[in-house]
């Protein structure tokens, strides 16, 4: 395997709440021969404010991120939604002659973790082992906006010992939606409940996903309802030995 | 009469940020034309297979026959549907396809009530179609993909013959079968562009009427016919 220099965009959720996912991401990539660079200047991608309509307020964060990752050869992030946001910058700065080209460069070198492993590193089996039954929640931004559907499945199907059960109505959003989860809490609750019920129907030991926000939502509800399902980020699964 | 058009269109143009255009035909430079490659390479036999399969999906009985047997097949189908009263178009094709003696002799001799559309009779035509047990028309164009018969209205070809009777039979000359609605639309558009007067009603009928408005349950037969049959006949 070649020595690929990867600049990691870890996302604020992972940085603050899911450090284990970050560690797993680093370890998986290093094992695949990547040299990891983590610019300490990285902050939040701006999505929470942006999605709530505060476009101007979020632009400073976006510029900060563009500048912080300017030196990178490739940017990899363990989040489909945040990767999508990086690719969205070029549209947000569409009319800005200075920031648009810089945003376009960032977009063209940004990859979601599984997409990077399968499509760039050309690795389909990372040698992970995990025994049990798993189901997978395909997060909305990752599948619909980023268009990454197959890569996570390819990697997961090659995890030794893992058995798969399809998640009923997997295509439906889990009800996270950033500020939606609190702004429209009553609706969000019904949505996440349906997701938890679907996961329960599969009798899976693990519910796997590739986006910290969705997993925090589904996981938080599973814990509140006391269900015996372990919520795992795909990086943690791929790092299991 | 056209009311308030100028002010309305001026406002539309203003919103679009330009002056009004009602004279220069806009260029339609489509980048995509998927219809040109959809079912266009099918042979007549392949189209027939597609049509046959589709009829099953639309709850429509499909009978294939020859010109010689058409009268017998039609009579049998009408009998299966419980006989008359029958409502028909005034269409030379009934004679061309050898149905004159069935319509003008056999059925009347058996006291089957047959009403042939007659513009002179005005509203009576509608009343007769409404009382009919079976309505019978020819298809003017037939769409294999969707299982659709296209009906062009005219003085002899009342709109309601296919709609008001309890059951509906379409006679489909095999030569009228085209791949899909694309070909029908192109033909109609060609006539418009050639300055022809198109029918006041062009009806694309696909099987019997139906509804899924009650708990998404499919109910066949709502306002229009409750049953439909297509008889495909080899052309003479």
């Amino acid at each position, binding site marked *: 395997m070649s020595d690929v220099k990867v600049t990691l965009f870890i996302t604020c959720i992972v940085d603050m709440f899911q450090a284990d996912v970050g560690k797993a991401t*680093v370890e998986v990539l290093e094992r695949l021969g990547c040299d990891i660079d983590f610019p300490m200047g990285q902050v939040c991608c701006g999505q929470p404010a942006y999605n709530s309509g*505060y476009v101007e307020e979020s632009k400073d964060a976006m510029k900060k991120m563009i500048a912080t990752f300017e030196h990178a050869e490739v940017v990899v992030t363990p989040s489909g939604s945040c990767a999508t946001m990086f690719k969205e910058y070029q549209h947000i700065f569409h009319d800005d002659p200075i920031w648009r080209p810089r945003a376009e460069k960032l977009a063209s070198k940004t990859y979601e973790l599984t997409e990077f492993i399968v499509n760039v590193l050309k690795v389909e089996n990372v040698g992970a082992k995990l025994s049990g039954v798993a189901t997978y929640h395909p997060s909305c931004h990752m599948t619909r906006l980023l268009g990454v559907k197959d890569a996570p499945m390819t990697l997961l199907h090659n995890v030794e010992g893992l058995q798969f059960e399809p998640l009923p109505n997997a295509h439906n959003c889990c009800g996270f*939606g950033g500020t939606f989860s609190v702004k429209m809490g009553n609706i969000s609750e019904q949505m996440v409940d349906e997701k938890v019920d679907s996961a329960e129907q599969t009798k899976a030991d693990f519910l796997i996903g590739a986006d910290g926000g969705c997993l925090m939502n589904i996981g938080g509800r599973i814990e509140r309802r006391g269900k015996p399902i372990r919520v795992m980020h795909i990086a943690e699964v791929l790092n299991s030995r | 009469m056209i009311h308030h058009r100028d002010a309305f269109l001026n406002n539309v143009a203003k919103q679009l940020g330009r002056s009004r255009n009602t004279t220069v035909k806009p260029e339609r430079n489509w980048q995509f034309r998927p219809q040109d490659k959809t079912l266009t390479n099918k042979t007549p036999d392949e189209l027939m297979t597609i049509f046959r399969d589709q009829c099953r999906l639309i709850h429509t009985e499909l009978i294939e026959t020859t010109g010689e047997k058409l009268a017998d097949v039609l009579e049998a189908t009408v009998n299966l549907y419980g006989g008359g009263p029958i409502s028909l178009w005034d269409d030379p094709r009934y004679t061309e396809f050898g149905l004159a003696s069935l319509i003008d002799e056999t059925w009347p001799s058996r006291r089957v009530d047959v009403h042939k559309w007659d513009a002179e009779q005005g509203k009576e035509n509608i009343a007769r179609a409404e009382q009919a047990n079976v309505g019978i028309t020819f298809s003017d164009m037939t769409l294999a993909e969707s299982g659709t018969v296209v009906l062009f209205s005219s003085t002899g070809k009342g709109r309601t013959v296919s709609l008001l009777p309890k059951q509906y039979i379409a006679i489909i000359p095999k030569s009228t079968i085209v791949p899909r609605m694309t070909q029908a639309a192109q033909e109609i558009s060609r006539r418009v562009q050639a300055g022809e007067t198109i029918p006041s009603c062009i009806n694309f009928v696909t099987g019997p009427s139906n509804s899924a408005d009650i708990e998404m349950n499919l109910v066949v*037969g709502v306002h229009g016919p409750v049953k439909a049959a297509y008889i495909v006949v080899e052309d003479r």
Partner: protein
Amino acid sequence: MAMKIGEGKFKDNVNKNMEDTFMRGAVAGAQERLRTRRLDAAEELGNWEEWRSHGEEIRQHVLNNLDYYLHELTENIQKRGGHVFFAETADEANAYVREVVNSKNGKKILKAKSMVTEEIGLNQMLEEEGCEVIETDLGEYILQLDEHDPPSHIVTPALHKNKEQIRDVFTEKLDYKLTEKPEELALHAREKLRQEFLTADIGITGCNFAIAESGSVGLVTNEGNAGLVTDLPKTQITVMGMERIVPTFEEFEVLVGLLTRSAVGQKLTSYITALTGPRMDGEADGPEEFHLVIVDNGRSGILGTEFQSVLQCIRCAACINVCPVYRHIGGHSYNSIYPGPIGAVLTPLLGGYDDFKDLPYASTLCAACTDACPVKIPLHELLHKHRQVIVEREGRAPISEKLAMKAFGLGAASNPMYAAGSKMASAMMKPFTKNDRISSGPGPLKAWTEIREFPAPNKERFRDWFKEHEKGGGGQ
């Protein structure tokens, strides 16, 4: 009834409707069925993305040349002896219809399902004029009988009702004596309505697509009711939203195929009718007089703006059928005859933010709607645009939210502030933390923890771990 169907607040409507377990089950079931059918139909057709792109380019072309095509359409209608009225407002449209109805001494009026006539409140006006107005689409007929219950879906308007409820309505209003079997209910409606068709004075329809080259109006139904509404009464009035038009029959075909597949997964519906003018000399059925009313009612205000693409809509409801929010709250929660993602975009544009500013937030921006739209309206982007307009142009966001977002802007963008804030988080949250979880959080976390556990911030952030990891040489 006009576009707005109730007075309740969005949150209250949602809470009320979410208790309707039948409705929710019906919506979930319908969504699954309709979604599968749509996907199967697209798969069978092949080249679906190309079809969508073609649909999109047709709709964009029409909107950008709307003045030309409306002119061409109406010239051709006039040539065929039809009448046309351009109405800027709902009131103007209703006034014209009233004038036609009165001039014909029309008493009994039959209608085929039409969203735009709901939008302008046409039925109410006609009833106030003393006319008997009868909806002929089975779903609409049921709602009308049930004291004008509003539609909850733009294609299957009575989706929220179960067959027992429908039986009870029929029993009360139609002296119905049979069971709740859909076949028996439908047959009864058929018999009742058949008599009405034969004795009606005026037929009123909407318009799926008008065809400019020939001056035709295209109607799409499964029941055949639009045919009867236009074949039998002496006068036909068709009301269309001004954007519902195509250049020629060729584009009509493309959009009809996208509509029927996306709405119900059918290649074509049972009846697709292109009507051109009144009946011709010597014809014995069809209307003797034909009127087309072209309605603006706020649409032109959308042209030329960042929301123009919403006018591409062909009213197939594919977005509604995949929306995970609609799935749980049902159509009535939106307080508009246009529910779901399309409604959440269109309703505030037509009806204003005063009444409908909550709707753009009733979405997780999951983009299922955008993905499903057969004419590629970027619905989730338009929902986001609404939020931006509400915050920036309208200044309607709550002050606390504005402050929070301002703080976010500063905090997220500034490295020292982000670093300090994220480092402090763990210590700040400590009083609320138990077993690495927060079950009842303060401030903004309250709403979250009412529903779910919140993870305690990491004692060691990822970045702190990474610094150590890097020192250790990294790699393995």
